[in-house]
C-alpha cells in the first residue's frame, strides 16, 4: 500500500460510498428517531392500507411488513452489515496469513490433512456449509437462551473459520514464490533467522496482496450473508414473532441486529405480493459489492502501475 492508491479515482469513489453509508448509519440516530411500527394507515379517519406499504405511499422505499420505514431500517442496518463483513474478512486474512507462515514452514507434516479439507470444500457451496454449521447452533442457543454477544461471537467464529483454509493454501503458495527469490535465498544463506526473513521481507512484500484479498473476502462474506438471510440464519440470532390475525397466524423471524440479510430473511415470505421489501435491501447489497469492486479495481490498477514503475 503506498501513496499512489489515493490517486486512483475508482478506489476513492468506492471508498466514499462505503464510508458515507457507515457514517450515515452511525450519525442517523442522533438526528432522526428510529422508525416506529405503524401497521395501519388512516386518511380522514378511514383505514386506507395495511402494512407493508408500497414506496408510493411512504417515500422513498416504502415499509416492511411491520410498517417501519425501509430507508431508516437500511441505514440503521448498514453499520452492522458492513462492519460484520469487514471484521470477518479482516480476521480471516490475518488468521490465514499467520497459519500460512506456520503451514509454509512446516509444510510436510501438515500438508496431507490440510490439502484434503481444502479441496473438498470446493464441492460444497459456502451457503450450505454455513447453514450446516450454524443451524444446529441457532437451535442450541434458542434452547439455552444464551447472551447476544456470545451468539454473535460464535457465529462470527464459524464464518471466519469456514474461510480460512483456502486462504492458507493460497498464501502459502505466494510465500513459497517469494522465498524462492534470490535475495531471500541469499539472506538466509548469510545467516538470517527465519523470523527475521518473514517479518522483514515476506510479509511486507505481501502487504498489498493482503489488502486485495480482504476486499475480495468482504464481497464473499456479503454474498454469504445474503444467502444465509434467505435461509433464516441471521447474525445475532432471530426473535420469533407471531404475525397476522387470529385466523391466519404465522411465525415471522426478525433479526435482532437489523442487518440487511436479516431484513431480507424476515420479509422473504412477503416477496410475492410486495417484492420491493426484499429487492431494495438486495439493491443495497449490490451497492456495497459494487463499491468493493471499485476498490479492488483501484488497488489492482495501482499494483500494475507500481510494478511497472519498479520494472523500469
Amino acid at each position: 500500500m503506498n501513496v499512489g492508491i489515493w490517486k486512483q479515482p475508482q478506489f476513492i469513489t468506492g471508498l466514499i460510498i462505503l464510508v458515507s453509508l457507515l457514517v450515515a448509519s452511525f450519525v442517523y440516530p442522533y438526528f432522526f428517531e428510529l422508525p416506529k411500527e405503524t401497521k395501519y394507515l388512516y386518511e380522514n379517519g378511514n383505514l386506507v392500507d395495511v402494512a407493508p406499504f408500497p414506496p408510493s405511499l411512504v417515500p422513498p422505499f416504502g415499509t416492511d411488513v411491520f410498517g417501519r420505514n425501509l430507508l431508516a431500517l437500511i441505514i440503521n442496518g448498514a453499520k452492522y452489515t458492513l462492519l460484520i463483513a469487514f471484521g470477518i474478512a479482516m480476521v480471516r486474512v490475518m488468521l490465514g496469513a499467520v497459519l500460512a507462515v506456520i503451514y509454509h514452514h512446516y509444510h510436510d507434516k501438515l500438508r496431507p490433512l490440510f490439502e484434503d479439507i481444502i479441496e473438498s470444500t470446493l464441492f460444497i457451496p459456502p451457503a450450505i456449509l454455513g447453514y450446516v454449521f450454524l443451524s444446529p447452533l441457532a437451535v442450541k442457543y434458542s434452547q439455552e437462551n444464551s447472551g447476544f454477544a456470545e451468539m454473535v461471537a460464535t457465529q462470527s467464529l464459524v464464518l471466519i473459520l469456514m474461510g480460512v483454509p483456502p486462504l492458507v493454501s493460497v498464501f502459502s503458495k505466494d510465500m513459497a514464490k517469494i522465498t524462492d527469490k534470490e535475495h531471500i535465498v541469499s539472506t538466509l544463506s548469510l545467516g538470517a533467522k527465519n523470523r527475521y526473513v518473514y517479518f522483514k521481507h515476506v510479509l511486507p512484500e505481501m502487504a498489498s496482496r493482503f489488502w486485495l484479498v480482504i476486499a475480495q473476502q468482504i464481497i464473499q462474506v456479503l454474498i454469504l450473508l445474503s444467502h444465509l438471510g434467505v435461509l433464516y440464519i441471521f447474525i445475532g440470532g432471530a426473535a420469533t414473532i407471531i404475525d397476522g390475525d387470529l385466523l391466519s397466524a404465522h411465525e415471522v423471524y426478525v433479526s435482532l441486529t437489523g442487518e440487511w440479510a436479516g431484513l431480507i430473511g424476515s420479509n422473504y415470505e412477503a416477496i410475492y405480493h410486495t417484492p420491493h421489501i426484499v429487492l431494495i435491501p438486495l439493491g443495497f447489497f449490490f451497492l456495497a459489492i459494487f463499491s468493493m469492486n471499485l476498490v479492488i479495481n483501484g488497488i489492482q490498477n495501482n499494483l500494475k502501475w507500481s510494478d511497472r514503475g519498479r520494472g523500469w
Partner: protein
Amino acid sequence: MTLGGYLRKLKSVSIGIIIISLLPSLISGLDQTFNLRNYQMNGKTYDIFPGIFEKYFYSMTIVLGALVIGLFFAILFTFGATLLPRFLKRLVYGILTVFESVPDLLIVLSLQMFIIYIYQKTGWLISNVTVVYDDKIYLVPILVLSVLPTIQLFKITFLLLEEEKYKPYVNVAKSMGLGDYYILIRHVFRNVLFNLFLYFKTIFVFLLSNLFIVEYIFNIHGLMRIMLSPNTFVFLISTILIAVPFLYVFELAQWMIHKSTGEREKEAA
C-alpha cells in the same frame, strides 16, 4: 494424467468431506443426524436410495445446460466486443464490472418477478416459476443460472483476448499477411479457449453456489436442497456425488496447466 492419481485424489477428498460432515454432529449429537435410509424435507419423509440419483442427474442437467449456454453467449459477446472501437471496449468493461457486482440472489429473484410480471400483463406464462410437487422444470432454471456465468466468462475471455492480442505470434501472423479475422478465429480464439479451461475451478465453485440459490428460490427438489436436510449422510453422499465427475475435470485442468506452463518454466530455469 493417470487414473490412479485421480482415484488417490478422490480418496483423500472423500476423507476431507467426511471430516467436514462430521463436524456439525459434535454440536447436535451423532445418533439423531445420521440416518442411512431416509431423510425428511418439508415435513415429508423420502428414501435416500435410489431417489438421490434422479435428483443428482436433474441438478447436473441444469448445471451443464447453464454452463453450455453461458459459454456460448460469452464467446458470442466476446467476439462482438472485439469488433468494437477502443473507447467502447472500455465501456463494455465498465458495464461488466457493474453486472458482476449484482448478487446472485437479486438476479434470480428479479427474473422470477419479471416472468410473473409478464404473465400478469399479457397472460403469457414463459414457464413455471416454482415447483409445487416433485415436478421438473428445466428452461427457466437453466436460463436463470446461466446469466451470471455468462457475465463472468465474458469478462475472463475479454481480458484473456486483450492479453493474447499483444503476443509475438500475432505479430508474426500479421506480418505473414494473414487476415485479421483469420488470425482472431484460427489462432487467438483457440488459445483463449484453452486458457479459459484453466479457470474452470473458479467458475465451477461460483456456479455451484448459484445453483443452490436457484434451487432454493424456485423450490426445485434438487441435490442442493436436500443437502440442507439435517441428515448428515445425505450431505455426505451428495457432496461425494458432485465431487466424482468434477474432480476429474479439475485434475484434467491441472494437468493441462502443468503441461503448458511447467515445461516452459523448466526451459526458463
